[in-house]
């Protein structure tokens, strides 16, 4: 897992229009599509694609996609 791959997988959780705007600096909670459904989708993606379990607390603690990647790396 590296940041580029994580960012790509993270972006794939969203619609194509939203995905195109996502990069490691993106503050994901400010994304238009972000909400409880997207949180579930991201948790499931991290679980299935990276074999790590992130929590609602982790999603609150992460600000950018890159900072979420750093949290996932510590798991």
């Amino acid at each position, binding site marked *: 897992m590296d940041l580029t791959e994580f960012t790509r997988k993270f972006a794939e959780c969203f619609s194509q229009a939203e995905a195109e705007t996502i990069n490691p600096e993106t503050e994901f909670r400010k994304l238009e599509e972000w*909400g*409880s*459904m997207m*949180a*579930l*989708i991201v*948790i*499931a993606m991290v*679980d*299935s694609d990276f074999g790590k*379990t992130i*929590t*609602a607390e982790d*999603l609150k603690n992460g600000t950018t996609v890159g900072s979420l990647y750093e949290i996932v790396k510590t798991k």
Partner: protein
Amino acid sequence: MAVFTVPNIKVSGISACVPTQTEDNKEFALLPDNEKDLFIKTVGIRYRRVAPPGITASDLCLTAAEKLLNDLSWQREEVKILVFITQTADYIIPNTASILQEKLGLSKGCIAFDVNLGCSGYVYGLSIVGALLQNMPGAKALLLVGDISTATISMRDKSTAPLFSDAGSATALEFSLNSDIHFNLQTDGKEFDDIIIPDGGYRNQFSEKSLQYEEFEKGIERNGLHMKLDGLKIFNFALREIAPNINTLLTEKAIDKASVDYFVFHQANLLMLESVRKKLQVAAEKVPYSLYDYGNTSSATIPLTMVTKLREQLVSQKLNFVLSGFGVGLSWGSAYIETEKIVCPQLIEL
């Protein structure tokens, strides 16, 4: 971890009953249109059955049980055990199983009691009934499992209202030599308030304050008598616990995963269940889903899925299943059962 076997028990029939009234999540006002579509695609629930005032979980189970007893041609006096698993009992006291014993015309020599469990209730119920029945050769038993969870949710709460649905079920079990059911049952009370109705019991007794709505976030308003569900924590719990629970059951009981015909999960959330299925490395055709049409019916989801998705196979074939229920408590468990041409009436609507 409680892995154990209940010997000499077989499932002879399963039936289910839902209310006629149907709600469509496409019409659910609290979610904007784009969120509705995402919800239906992700969580997997489109339609929900809602019991109107006057119809309780016990009514749904009673209807399912009467049809099943008639189709099995069981005499009422043969039924020596009735266990009713619900979190929406008719009354605080007495237990509803006593009322069902009388309504079903069962004899006074019948054990009857309620068990307060939700999502794990069907699997737990099979173990409870099985454990009693194995010491009563010749006896027959009814496991009635159901809830009207829609009566416990706030229609101003988008985190619960589009999920829950109502159903009742009846499962007939009897003593049968050389027919075993294997279980792996677990509990974690540390997380007891992840799914909770906080008021109205005896810890937080009903008061005027119980009726006051509170806004927790936009689209989530409820009072103390409504069910609270921490969806993300339950999602994490399911991802963490369910596949290992099933794998342990299969390993300890030396059951080849590839030989299992169907894995029937508690119908909580499609994304969650698909994640669990992939962890288990089980083919999609072995995992039936009923939640698009019937939502999360609490303890009734497993028998409801069997009746609505596997009925033709159940009545005509020898099958084996892994059943897995998980949620409120937190309480979870899996069971391995075998069936052979059981009685399974079509879904009943009340």
